């Protein structure tokens, strides 16, 4: 999950650039899906006012936190050999 900043020796520049581009693409997609999920879970779709309410704001904060936790759990499952239970 975390950005790899220490690369093995012998890896050339272009590969590093490719990996960084991938990492960035991954983060952008993670952000977009997370933002969509939390908008759906937290924001009232009747749009009675242009401001987010206090309830919506705290829902959003918790939603982002929980999404990261889910991301971490599934990441661990996958790297642990895909048989956690």
């Amino acid at each position, binding site marked *: 999950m975390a950005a790899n900043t220490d690369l093995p020796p012998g890896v050339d520049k272009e590969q590093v650039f490719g990996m960084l581009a991938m990492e960035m693409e991954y983060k952008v997609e993670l952000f*977009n899906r997370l933002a969509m999920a939390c*908008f759906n879970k937290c924001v009232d779709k009747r749009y009675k006012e*242009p401001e*987010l309410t206090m309830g919506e704001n705290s829902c959003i904060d918790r939603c982002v936190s929980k999404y990261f936790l889910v991301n971490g759990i599934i990441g661990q499952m996958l790297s642990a050999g895909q048989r956690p239970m």
Partner: protein
Amino acid sequence: IEQLQVRDSMRMYNSVVERCFNDCVDNFTRKSLQKQEETCVMRCAEKFLKHSMRVGLRFAELNNLAATPDQSN
């Protein structure tokens, strides 16, 4: 890299429009927008942008935490 950012903001723009159209417009007896549809669209876009900014802040915080798991260095 710069082009990636332009692309992201384009996509984001397209997705606000799609979302607010879907949530606010449901009457197709005329081809112009009614007043309350217009109001709904503007509020929706405002909320969506504010939501994106807030998510962006929280995301950056948690992302930085994850990138530096060892604070003792």
